[in-house]
């Protein structure tokens, strides 16, 4: 049981950490100042969530690992994030599409985790939900503006969607970890999670005049620690200081 909880917290925390890191790469590179600030604000929220989740994960594991140990001192196969969140930023359209597919899942997820029998997960979810609502509003509005924008912006958004769609199925990946936690009420009823996500995605993409790809090929692996090459590059940058100067602080 403790193991399943630890594993689940890594999944939750790694999604936040890796996407937060990806978004931080936009710092100083945003297409306009307001979006530079917006993307780094999202990043800050996500990294803040990761901090709270890892702090708790360290306690659950009981081996004395801190939130920093978990963020900076694991190997690639020990990360449990979705492949979707480690996808490269691409252009602004790709970043926004990735964010939208993720936010549309995160909001209903947190809405359910608020009812977790685990008090700490419920508290983190209640806190994060408020922030995620802003994230989803931001990414939805941009998907619509760019999708239903110029021919150039429309095509780029459609390309982004075509490219990212195969990673979306992993949002609903479930295995024995979920089964164990469902049995104990840590994970409340998740049945309608996917249909709620589909509803949001369909409504927004329709408004954005974008078409859901017909190709149903699915690419999974992150939840089991099997990542694309991109995670290695992320970790090289993320972990550099702690690997080069172990235990450094400032």
């Amino acid at each position: 049981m403790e193991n399943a909880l630890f594993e689940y917290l890594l999944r939750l925390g790694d999604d936040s950490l890796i996407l937060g890191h990806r978004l931080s790469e936009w710092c100083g590179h945003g297409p306009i100042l307001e979006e530079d600030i917006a993307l780094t604000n999202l990043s800050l929220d996500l990294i803040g969530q990761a901090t709270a989740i890892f702090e708790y994960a360290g306690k659950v594991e009981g081996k004395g690992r801190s939130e920093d140990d978990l963020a900076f001192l694991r190997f690639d196969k020990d990360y449990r994030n979705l492949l979707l969140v480690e996808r490269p930023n691409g252009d602004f359209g790709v970043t926004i599409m990735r964010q939208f597919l993720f936010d549309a899942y995160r909001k209903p997820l947190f809405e359910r985790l608020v009812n977790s029998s685990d008090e700490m997960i419920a508290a983190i979810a209640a806190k994060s939900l408020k922030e995620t609502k802003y994230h989803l509003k931001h990414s939805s509005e941009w998907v619509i503006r760019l999708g239903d924008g110029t021919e150039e912006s429309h095509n780029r958004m459609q390309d982004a969607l075509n490219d990212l769609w195969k990673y979306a199925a992993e949002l609903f990946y479930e295995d024995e970890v979920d089964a164990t936690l469902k049995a104990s009420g840590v994970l409340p009823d998740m049945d309608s999670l996917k249909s709620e996500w589909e509803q949001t995605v369909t409504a927004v993409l329709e408004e954005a005049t974008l078409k859901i790809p017909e190709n149903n090929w699915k690419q999974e692996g992150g939840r089991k620690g099997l990542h694309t090459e991109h995670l290695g590059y992320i970790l090289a940058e993320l972990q550099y200081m702690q690997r080069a100067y172990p235990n450094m602080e400032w």
Partner: protein
Amino acid sequence: MVISTEEIWGYLEEVFDPEVPVLTVVDLGVVRKVELDGDACKVTITPTYSGCPAMKRIEDDIVEKLKEKGIENVTVDLVLAPAWTTDWLSENGKRKLKEYGIAPPENEPDKSVLFAEPIVVPCPKCDSKDTRLVSQFGSTACKAHYQCNDCLEPFDYFKCLR
């Protein structure tokens, strides 16, 4: 020296938010509890946003202020539940925000409502209701960026978080 929790709350009125320095940590609603056990004082605070970089500074400032008042044995506890909301901003705090040039939170519909009517945020300088949202995300996590169409003043809006 015998101190009361009321006195401690009073001292905390002298600790300011590092990013919005007109607000005290009490105005902001981040101080949730003050407890005394003999000469040990425990202050419970809650973060505004998960990634708010000011929390560590607020913790340090609280310890420092209470030391300055002669209370040596201080611990600051950070709790996540119940989650902070802008509803906890004091009326005094809202007034101070406006005077400082930051529009205080308006009563907003739920963020999850897509395509909702935009809310009206009056300009903190000229009170005009003809303003526009520039960006949902501003200079800090808790603010959005607006501009007044009448006096043209760009201003921060302390956004509603529920």
